[in-house]
């Protein structure tokens, strides 16, 4: 598939671009580490006053934080920088070049920039996840592991689709990079299980900004509380959201080219 060949080329380019600044990886580790420490400190403060939070034990929450950082890093390696660049390209007009290329514009746009060192987020997230599983000797069998991966996949697709929808708004509004703040603001709420939030916020984080599916549901899968139906629901929703984002992107392109739709 050509999209895969493009992915390889762009990853190589990203690695080349950043390999000259290897010390950046250390700084990224430092910053991510600090970020994680600050989240863990908040959890520590909360659990100094209570034993469970909305039914979640401390280790389950740290596993959730691990997943939070894994997803965060995945977004920051490619999706966020690429789509940010896309928005700048709309303003500068460089996006015109993308449109003259004989490849799917959405694929080109989604791959265009790689921040390889943000893999530090994924790395530290994975460490937190594994440490919490091991320390609490949680039993993660094949079923839980499979469910977890499926849930993570569904969450990733939803987050990606959501980003495409936000980025597509750039065809209508110029200073759209601010719209991305909606995502980041909402995403920080994913550091806690969305189940504890009041109804309106819970639904927003589930259906409007797919934070629940990206973080909480995979964490539930790891701790063995995700039901098969909720997983199926997540996968179904992922497909729907992906199809919608694709359609919306096409509408955006038509609008950019000034087609009366």
């Amino acid at each position, binding site marked *: 598939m050509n999209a895969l060949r493009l992915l390889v080329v762009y990853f190589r380019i990203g690695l080349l671009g950043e390999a000259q600044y290897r010390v950046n990886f250390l*700084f990224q580790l*430092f910053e991510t580490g600090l*970020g994680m420490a600050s989240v863990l400190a*908040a959890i520590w403060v*909360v659990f*100094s006053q209570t034993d469970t939070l909305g039914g979640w034990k401390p280790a389950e929450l740290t596993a959730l934080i691990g997943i939070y950082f894994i997803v965060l890093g995945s977004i920051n390696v490619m999706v966020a920088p690429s789509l940010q660049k896309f928005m700048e390209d709309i303003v500068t007009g460089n996006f015109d070049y993308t449109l003259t290329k004989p490849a799917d514009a959405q694929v080109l746009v989604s791959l265009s920039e790689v921040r390889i060192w943000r893999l530090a987020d994924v790395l530290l997230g994975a460490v937190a996840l594994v440490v919490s599983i091991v320390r609490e000797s949680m039993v993660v069998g094949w079923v839980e592991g499979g469910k977890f991966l499926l849930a993570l996949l569904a969450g990733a697709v939803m987050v990606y689709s959501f980003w495409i929808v936000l980025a597509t708004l750039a065809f209508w509004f110029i200073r759209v990079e601010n719209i991305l*703040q909606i995502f980041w603001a909402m995403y920080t709420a994913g550091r*806690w299980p969305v189940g*504890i939030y009041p109804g309106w916020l819970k639904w927003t984080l589930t259906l409007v900004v797919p934070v629940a599916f990206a973080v909480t549901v995979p964490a539930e899968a790891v701790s063995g509380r995700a039901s098969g139906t909720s997983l199926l629901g997540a996968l179904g929703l992922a497909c729907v959201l992906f199809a919608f984002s694709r359609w919306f992107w096409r509408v955006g392109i038509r609008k950019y080219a000034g087609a009366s739709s």
Partner: protein
Amino acid sequence: MLVPTFTWGAVMHWLRTLQAYPAFLRISLLSNLQYRASGAIWMIGSILEPVVYLTVWSTVARSQGGSVGGYTPEEFAAYYMTLLLVNHLTFTWVMHEFQYRVQYGHFSFALLRPIHPIHEDIALNLSFKAVQLAVILPALILLGLAFHPRFDLDPLSVALFLPALAMGFLLRFLFEWTLAMAAFWTTRVTAINQSYFSVQMLLSGRVAPISLLPSWVAAAAGFLPFYYASGFPVEVALGRLSTDQVLRGFGIQLVWITVAAAVISLVWRRSARKFTAVGS
């Protein structure tokens, strides 16, 4: 330059500086109105954060039989709603902005002007906050309907809140402006910023009212500046502090304001020289 010295010349200097404010405010108001929509979007994060911690602590309070550390869910609601307002009025973005200013040479213009750049920043900050109150106030009303806060306001507390808030603003502004100058000396400011925000988050009363922090952390928060720009004005307004604590708080605010102002006036000239020497 920023530490007031009471000579006649200094008074005249300060008066002339103040004369620049109406123009600064007008211009910054214009540009803030221009970007009102994007500004409103930035508010989502500011509004969501206290809602998140309010929910977390209310959940804890309920599971602990109705209250934790002297706060009921309704009192947490009052705390975090007031904190939302205070934090909106005292936060700054100068630490993020300095990096760009140095990198793209915006300081070259600032240095050519015969007025300290901090004044334009203050004006920009104030007008932004005035414009964005149009988002914050309705949000507060909605949060009030959603979370049923319990306010026991007495006139004295409200009267004391205003100076506590004003000093909190000045303290945080000067403090962050000082740290922001690091951008002149290193390109690694995000590491510094990240460290600052992590500590600020925990010790300012945003993660939890500081009385809920483990005692040694709370003790540290008691003499560091972070709490005095956020949690302190909130607790003053809600009447949660004794007269002693309030007076001591005002004292600590004054000390930190003086320290920050002194550092700025010392470091700014050197930074500016450093900037012109590097040249960008």
